[in-house]
């Protein structure tokens, strides 16, 4: 591979692409990475489909041992308490559908609100002319520097004063109106929409509001989609904030419910089958969502670098 002269390339046409020791090593490393990434997912499924007693007897078996759907039934709260305890569960099931609906409501409120309102603000920063624009934008940028975690305690006090504790709206509200990052990110894309497109619409007599809805939003649809899916995933996976705000089933989201389900398992022996079934059904909606948009999301992240 060194000193690549014309003759050597001709003699070994596959020179660069061939199986040099380095490439074999690199591909092996890649294979190891894929294995470490994906193997836990298989192990979740294998455990969820096994029975607890068989898991204890045969922990290393690569296949489900004594296959049963008992784990899923316990996670979904379909088993009676006696049945659940007999199979190594805690008795208390997961009101899965209730928590799923709560998670969907919270994540949808946050995503739709945050993206839409941030896009409006981003448009005002990118394309409207008004006094003090750069100063207000600098303030938003400074907001990027405040770690989310710092605002959680005071925000909890605020949400409590607003009477929104243990309420789905209280969970959604702090990130429903904007995040500095969403504003910053969308502004970058609106800046890149060619002026000419906007001007053509202006000449056709369209107002600025119409331009926002008919020109800007459609032209930024790919970044908006990516940002939207990532915002949805982040909202869905959030644990700390909903843990603070929700006290009862009425506002409990999946992550919080799952942590409680884990804390309930008997200390003498975990209900691994039930726990793995529960983690799988909690993670499944995001895996499916990602599967639908994977190609566009991956290319947006890996070419613009969004976080």
């Amino acid at each position, binding site marked *: 591979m060194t000193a690549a002269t014309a003759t050597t390339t001709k003699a070994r046409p596959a020179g660069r692409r061939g199986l040099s020791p380095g490439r074999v090593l690199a591909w092996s*490393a890649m294979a190891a990475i894929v294995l470490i990434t994906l193997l836990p997912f298989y192990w979740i499924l294998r455990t969820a489909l096994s029975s607890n007693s068989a898991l204890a007897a045969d922990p290393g078996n690569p296949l489900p041992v004594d296959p049963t759907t008992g784990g899923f039934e316990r996670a979904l709260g379909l088993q009676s308490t006696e049945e659940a305890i007999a199979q190594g569960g805690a008795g208390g099931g997961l009101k899965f559908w209730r928590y799923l609906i709560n998670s969907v409501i919270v994540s949808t409120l946050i995503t739709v609100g945050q993206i839409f309102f941030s896009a409006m603000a981003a448009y005002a920063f990118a394309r409207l002319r008004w006094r003090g624009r750069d100063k207000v934008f600098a303030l938003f940028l400074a907001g990027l520097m405040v770690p989310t975690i710092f605002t959680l305690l005071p925000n909890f006090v605020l949400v409590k004063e607003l009477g929104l504790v243990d309420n789905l709206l209280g969970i959604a509200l702090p990130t429903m109106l904007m995040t500095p990052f969403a504003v910053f990110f969308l502004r970058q894309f609106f800046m890149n929409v060619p002026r000419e497109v906007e001007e053509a619409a202006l000449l056709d007599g369209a107002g600025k509001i119409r331009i926002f809805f008919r020109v800007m939003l459609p032209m930024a649809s790919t970044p908006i989609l990516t940002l939207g899916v990532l915002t949805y995933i982040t909202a869905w996976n959030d644990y700390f904030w909903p843990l603070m705000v929700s006290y009862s089933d009425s506002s409990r989201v999946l992550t919080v419910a799952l942590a409680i389900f884990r804390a309930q398992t008997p200390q003498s022996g975990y209900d691994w089958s039930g726990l793995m079934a529960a983690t799988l059904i909690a993670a499944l909606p995001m895996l499916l969502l990602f599967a639908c948009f994977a190609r566009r999301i991956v290319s947006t992240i890996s070419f613009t670098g969004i976080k």
Partner: protein
Amino acid sequence: MTIASSSPPSRLPLGSAREARTGPRPNRARARESGGDGRLAALFLAPALLGFVVFLLWPTLRGVYLSFTRFNLLTPAEWVGLDNYVRMVNDPIFWDSLTVTVEYVVINIGVQTAAALAIAVLLQRLTQSAMLRGIVLTPYLMSNVVAGIVWLWLLDTQLGIGNEIVAALGADRIPFLADETWAIPTIALINVWRHVGYTALLLFAGLQAIPNDMYEAARVDGASEWRMFRRITLPLLRPVLAVVLIMTVIGSFQVFDTVTVTTAGGPANATNVLQYYIYGAAFGRFQFGYASAMSVALLVVLSAITFLQYRLTRAGRSDLG
């Protein structure tokens, strides 16, 4: 956070704002714009500005204020001056918890950055497969809670597959999450598993900005892959790497979820990370003032680290162009 590969975020706004104002514009459009869009801008900005002021600016100021008070949520906050800070400095558990957090961050960020860099370079030099990039991102789709529970099972001392492998290799079983020395490194690595793919893709985005001719030229000169990595990839990626590092370090200091579901701060406070201690002070003992003071301390530490990293890595300057 956006990683703009050619220029850092801090320089973007000024340059691009200026850009937006210039440029040719037909007369009619200019005439219509000349009055400015003040009213319309107010309308477009109102919801986001409300959110910014009420849920970001106000809580930030209030968090600082609460750190100077005694406050239990039920009775009004009572000003106590520097009491909370004096107490913090004399609180051995606070210092322990800060030490544990720093240990976690060092392991987490060290391993994650090295692994992410390796994955990004492999993805760039080996294949352009979008599928592989999708695969490395999958753990990120799970919540920290799910990832924590899953690894609690995989690493269970008696039944976990991790310890089955350890036992098969002839070693003693390791109580990964139940042992004082192992717990923090284990939690740090669990979070590497969840976040490394995302970090790798951010670095991959930075690698796309490096012109391919440079690698071609180096290859003609007979440079090895390792040499190309040292002489081309690493120096040119530095600004992006610096920004990613600042972001991930800030995120890493906020570790909480994984600790809650795996060890709950134990054994014997060995994983009592700062955020866990703060949560306990606020919601376990209702000392919101003291919890706020510790949050302010964390904020100061994070700001100092950001500032230092920015200076040390010269994040603002690129070697490209």
